[in-house]
């Protein structure tokens, strides 16, 4: 026979277990909106049976106990999610940035440089047919000014964007370093918990969330070690190892190599994430910017070569129309302090528009320095390439977004909290708790009866 208080003890274990189950359910309900939270399940198990020695040995059930609290999580999904959100962030950021660049170029609208270039050459054609006309000369000056100003505005705004992005990369680096330190802290706590055998799902959730955030900035590789700590690396560069975090240096950024170079020389390759997007965008913008510079320089050189050979209405020659060496400093030359100095003529005859004609026909000439393209085509090639870059970023964003949504659904299916489900669990555990409480009172009654019987015999 089991001992007298066996039933009470069984009931009290049931009460405790159900209480724990209800608390865990409450925990789930409380965290229904917590990002990165994984639902937890109380793992109930029957306690070891008691052996009753008699004619035959009987095994009698002894109730329930909580084996553990399980965190429902699929680590494989987490890894894929981190990689995908890294890609998503990369393409989204790149798309946003390149869209801004598109806004700066303002093609295809009246405000774009392409219209200004054509208007510039058209003005010279108009001048070639009416070289003595003061109004048309003023028009030429105005179009030259408008074109060079558009060049300068484009270059200035692209430079501003580059500067802003460089700043953003620096803040991202400090953000990454902060996250790395937080992960190292969590590593310390998780390693301790694991050592004493009380692993907590909530800390793991927090760490997973931090790795995910980190992935949004830079694509990282995270490996869980035997002691429960997470090793996080960027290519060769180990960001977090055990309880140590290593800072990414923010002062030695090498954009061209698409990598951050650390002081000791180990390269941290930024494979993905918003930081990679910033680096890519900067590279693209620098490329557009360089080509604008080449275009501006070629334009100044070619226009001046013809213009200097011609004569103004005031008989002067060897005047430059434009000056400057790049897109940022191209402007109408100080030589043109009077519209009569615009050299329309190949001779000093006032009706000579042949030099203006030669200037306007420059637009059809191809130049080796412009990849054997004409001036208008060289420019529209930049715009077409910008469109391609933006488009592929947009496609990358759409694709990774769909993938991310699917993964999110899969992961939520495993780890997410469903309120209705938790409510029904809560009811289930509540009923069990009520039953166990009833059990206590029945057991209590039997013991009271027993005690009363014993008292009666005495």
């Amino acid at each position, binding site marked *: 026979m089991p001992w007298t208080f066996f039933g009470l003890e069984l009931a009290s274990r049931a009460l405790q277990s159900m209480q724990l189950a209800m608390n865990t359910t409450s925990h789930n309900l409380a965290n*229904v*909106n917590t990002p990165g939270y994984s*639902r937890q399940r109380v793992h109930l198990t029957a306690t070891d049976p008691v052996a009753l020695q008699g004619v035959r040995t009987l095994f009698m059930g002894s109730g329930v106990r909580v084996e553990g609290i399980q965190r429902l999580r699929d680590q494989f999904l987490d890894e894929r999610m981190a990689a995908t959100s890294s890609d998503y962030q990369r393409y989204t950021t790149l798309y946003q940035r*390149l*869209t801004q660049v*598109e*806004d700066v*170029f303002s*093609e*295809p609208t009246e405000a*774009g440089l*392409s*219209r200004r270039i*054509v208007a510039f050459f*058209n003005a010279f*054609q*108009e001048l*070639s*047919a*009416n070289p*003595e*006309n003061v109004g048309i000369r003023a028009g030429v000056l105005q179009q030259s000014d408008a074109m060079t100003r558009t060049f300068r505005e484009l270059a200035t705004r692209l430079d501003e964007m580059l500067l802003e992005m460089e700043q953003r990369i620096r803040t991202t680096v400090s953000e990454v370093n902060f996250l790395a330190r937080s992960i190292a802290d969590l590593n310390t706590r998780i390693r301790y918990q694991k050592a004493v055998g009380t692993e907590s799902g909530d800390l793991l959730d927090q760490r997973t969330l931090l790795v995910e955030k980190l992935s949004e900035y830079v694509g990282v590789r995270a490996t869980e070690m035997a002691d429960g700590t997470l090793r996080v690396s960027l290519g060769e560069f180990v960001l977090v190892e055990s309880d140590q975090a290593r800072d990414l240096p923010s002062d030695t950024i090498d954009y061209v190599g698409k990598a951050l170079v650390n002081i000791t020389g180990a390269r941290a390759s930024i494979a993905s994430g918003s930081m990679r997007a910033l680096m890519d965008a900067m590279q693209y913008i620098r490329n557009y910017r360089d080509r604008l510079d080449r275009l501006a320089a070629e334009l100044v050189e070619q226009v001046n070569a013809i213009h200097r050979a011609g004569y103004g209405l005031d008989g002067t020659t060897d005047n430059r129309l434009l000056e400057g060496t790049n897109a940022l400093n191209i402007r109408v030359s100080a030589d043109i302090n009077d519209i009569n100095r615009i050299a329309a*003529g190949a*001779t000093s*005859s*006032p*009706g*000579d*528009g*042949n030099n203006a*004609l030669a200037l*306007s026909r420059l637009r*059809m000439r191809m130049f080796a320095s412009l990849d054997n393209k004409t001036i*208008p*085509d060289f420019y*529209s*090639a930049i*715009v*077409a*390439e*910008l*469109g*391609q870059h*933006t488009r592929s970023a*947009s496609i990358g964003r759409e694709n990774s977004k769909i993938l991310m949504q699917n993964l*999110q*659904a*899969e992961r*939520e*299916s*495993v*780890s*997410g*909290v*469903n*309120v*209705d489900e938790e*409510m*029904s669990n809560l*009811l289930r555990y509540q009923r069990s708790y009520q039953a166990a409480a009833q059990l206590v009172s029945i057991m209590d009654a039997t013991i009271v009866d027993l005690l009363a019987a014993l008292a009666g015999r005495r």
Partner: protein
Amino acid sequence: MRVSTSQMHYSLQQAIERNYERYHEAQQAVITGKRIRRPSDDPFGASLGITLHRLLQETEQYQRNLTTARNFLFITDVALEELNDLLRQTKALAIQAATDTQNVEGRQAIAYRIRQMLEQIVNIGNNTTYGDRFIFSGLKTLTPPFRVVGEELVYEGDYGNLNVELSPAVVMTINVQGDPLVTGIYRAMARVVQYIETNNIEQLSREGLQELQNQLDNLLRTRAIVGSKIQQVEMIQQRLEKRNIDFTELLSTIEDVDAAEAITQLRMREIAYQFTLATAARLQNLSLLDFLA
């Protein structure tokens, strides 16, 4: 598949977001009427669009150039026709003067009339202008081309060509220099007057008339050139107008949205968005909590 509460919200949010974005896109298409609003909407179409815009912008300029060329050539043609008339009259008078029956008084009267016509030649030469420009001065368009010194007509202009670009392939010279055309006519007529005044009938009939005929032939050739240039300008003008229409149409098919299609699309997306919102509202209201006593 098991669906968590936040997943349900998330999916609904995604659906609302996506459908709203698509609704907004359709709205933009209808409002702007443009299919390509930025290069990334269609990189190939956008770069083609830039080229077409450039060609259209250039065509506009060509049209202005063509108008200039045509007007300039017309004015030249009118002046040449007047010169032609004067030259013909001179020839008729010279033939009259060369006849043996003509007496001295009659010849003097003829000489007087030809001298008047010489003045008219100078008038035509110095007063035919395009705007403020003297058309016979070569490129010294601000200087009157002719000055009479004694019996000679001195050319004050130069021999420069006024060139105008009419299409990428055609650059046309639109001016006729006053020398030797007008000066030649003047010289021949002045010579004829001298022969008549000095009663040198032999030289008048032998050389004078021949010179006048030479000038007439020369003028005819020049007029033929000017006329063919006017024809060429008109042909290019027609071609350019057609090109303009073609380019505008092509540009429209590349850049513009089909209005009917865009509006239908907007309506469809609006309905899709309404459905999404209605579904969201219903799903958000369902909970076990509502059924627990």
